[in-house]
């Protein structure tokens, strides 16, 4: 099946600083995730991780349109959302390694990064589990008159969860400032979304009267431009919105999912990486428009690399929580 992509005209006047910031954020997520994979492969990280590589433009484009105190909820594939919203790589890595210096003091791990300082209500390992929480944050914002908005990130797999439709109905009835960002990376774990999704995705929010559109999730300029417009509308009290971001998960469902031929062809992956890579697309635009040159982008890349290396070093050296902490934080 296909879902039509509206081609919003990416604002050609996006200021250079913003483009370079988004470039840096995408590179940060990419290198962060490559490092996560490396830690897993070297058996230095407990458990598994679900990598966001390939989808960076979605988190970065959306979060660039948000204020720091706007809320987000994230998913099991959440590292990109958390970093884009303002989490620091060092405390992220510390959490992934189960260290006390991590965002959740080592109690949440890869799938549960939460950070009140950046409005991150938490990544959620129940698919669709946070759609109510995001609407609840929007309900608070509306009730308390704070002008914050809430963004609910979820994958297309969550389209199968009934909770989403209960909550979209409520969000529209109550005119809540919540934005549903559906990242369609084409695969519900190991199953192509066309095998799990009947009808047209955008017709679902449309049935509730929620404004819905789609965007090329590999084009960070388009994501940002579209998100900015939607965020403005939602912030000014026009009720919820739904944005479908068409994207692609380069890696497996999780770091251990390396043999993928039984559900998708290598050529498909190679085609996305070669033709639709979000970092490459943006760097080509920046260079083509002469907003910066290769050398400048290389400097950014090198900066990020050293930040990520330092963050990993911090996390590796950080202490594990004491066993006495196992019963702390059950109750506030």
């Amino acid at each position: 099946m296909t879902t039509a992509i509206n081609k919003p005209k990416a604002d050609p006047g996006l200021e250079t600083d913003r483009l370079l910031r988004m470039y840096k954020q995408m590179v940060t997520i990419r290198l962060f995730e490559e490092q996560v994979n490396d830690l897993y492969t070297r058996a230095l990280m407990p458990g598994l991780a679900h990598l966001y590589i390939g989808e960076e433009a979605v988190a970065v484009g959306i979060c660039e349109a948000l204020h720091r105190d706007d809320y987000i909820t994230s998913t099991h594939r959440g590292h990109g959302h958390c970093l884009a919203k303002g989490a620091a790589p060092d405390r992220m890595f510390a959490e992934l390694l189960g260290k006390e210096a991590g965002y959740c003091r080592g109690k949440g791990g890869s799938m549960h990064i939460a950070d009140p300082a950046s409005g991150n209500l938490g990544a959620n390992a129940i698919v669709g589990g946070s759609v109510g929480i995001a609407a609840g944050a929007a309900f608070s914002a509306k009730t308390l008159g704070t002008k914050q908005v809430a963004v609910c990130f979820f994958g297309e797999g969550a389209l199968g969860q009934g909770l989403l439709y209960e909550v979209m109905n409520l969000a529209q009835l109550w005119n809540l400032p919540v934005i549903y960002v559906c990242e369609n990376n084409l695969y519900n774990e190991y199953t192509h979304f066309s095998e799990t999704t009947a009808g047209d995705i955008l017709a679902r929010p449309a049935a509730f009267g929620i404004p819905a559109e789609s965007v090329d999730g590999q084009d960070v300029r388009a994501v940002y431009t579209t998100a900015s417009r939607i965020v403005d509308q939602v912030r000014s009290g026009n009720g919820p919105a739904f944005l479908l971001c068409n994207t692609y998960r380069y890696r497996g469902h999780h770091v251990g999912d390396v043999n993928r031929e039984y559900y998708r062809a290598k050529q498909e992956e190679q085609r996305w990486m070669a033709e639709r890579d979000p970092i490459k697309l943006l760097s080509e635009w920046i260079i083509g428009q002469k907003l910066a040159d290769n050398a400048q982008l290389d400097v950014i890349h090198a900066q990020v690399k050293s930040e990520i290396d330092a963050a990993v070093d911090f996390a590796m050296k950080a202490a594990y929580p004491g066993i006495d902490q196992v019963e702390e934080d059950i109750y506030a």
Partner: protein
Amino acid sequence: MPEVAVRELTLGEAVREALAEEMRRDPRVCLIGEDVAEAGTPFKVLSGLVEEFGKTRVIDTPISEAGFTGIAVGAAMTGLRPVVDIMFGDFVTLTMDQMVNQAAKVHYMSGGAWKVPMVLRATLGASRRSAAQHSQSLHAWFSHVPGLKVVLPSTPYDAKGLMKTAIRDENPVIFFEDKMMFKFKGPVPLEEYTIPFGVADIKREGDDITIVATSSMVQVALGAASMLEEIGISAEVIDPRTTWPLDEKALIESAKKTSRAIVVDEGYERYGVTAEIASVIATGAFYDLDAPVKRIGAMHVPVPFSPHLEDATIPSEQLVFEAARAMCKRS
């Protein structure tokens, strides 16, 4: 001691008064649920609240228990103190992911970064001739989950004081009211008061046997205690009031004093609240017990409709009386 002004309220009125007082005290408190506003719920417990607090704080919802419970979780995390109304306790099954995987876990999973100060009100109890999907007592499920607190008031006095504590608590609290007790009357002081969680209350003192009872089973236990008194057995009735936190010490002390204990609860007996409390007493009072701890819960059947069948599934005064008499070896 100055005399405290007291009047009689029903349990439903006591709950309503607690909600109204907390809503006056704290503008962050709001009520969310099906037909909570003008209808005041089918049980009329919330009647009048929408008139005082308006529809922005007494909020009717679609029939979407999971959806509005999830919204309450998010609202609680971000500055409000929602009280969610789940009309029949059987419908908590629809909220389980939001309560068990979200509300209960947010604080721990975030290393203490976020908290979820919300209350979920629900009913429990059979004998209303409502059959298997409107009659269950599912409080054991929530008592099993770390991160939740579970309250089971048995009197109007307890209901009011415990509800005020629940609303002020920084954690998700499940508050179960027996729907057959909404009209049950009891003394409630005019003065403001709260009742701390995890503190059992001795509803009747006695020396020969301890009857631990929860919710409406407290009245069953008190009825049995009166019958026992007539044959010379002095029964102590103790109500834990919260199944978590659980006042283990008070339960053990009572059992040590009387040397015998029966635990009565309307949840299913198998793997239920009676099992946990019996274990606490058996372990804590082992050397003082003269008999194994006896458990009396609901029969392990879906609650049937036909009245004489339904009545057979619920612990009765007669059943408790006979069990106690046998344990005390009186005929």
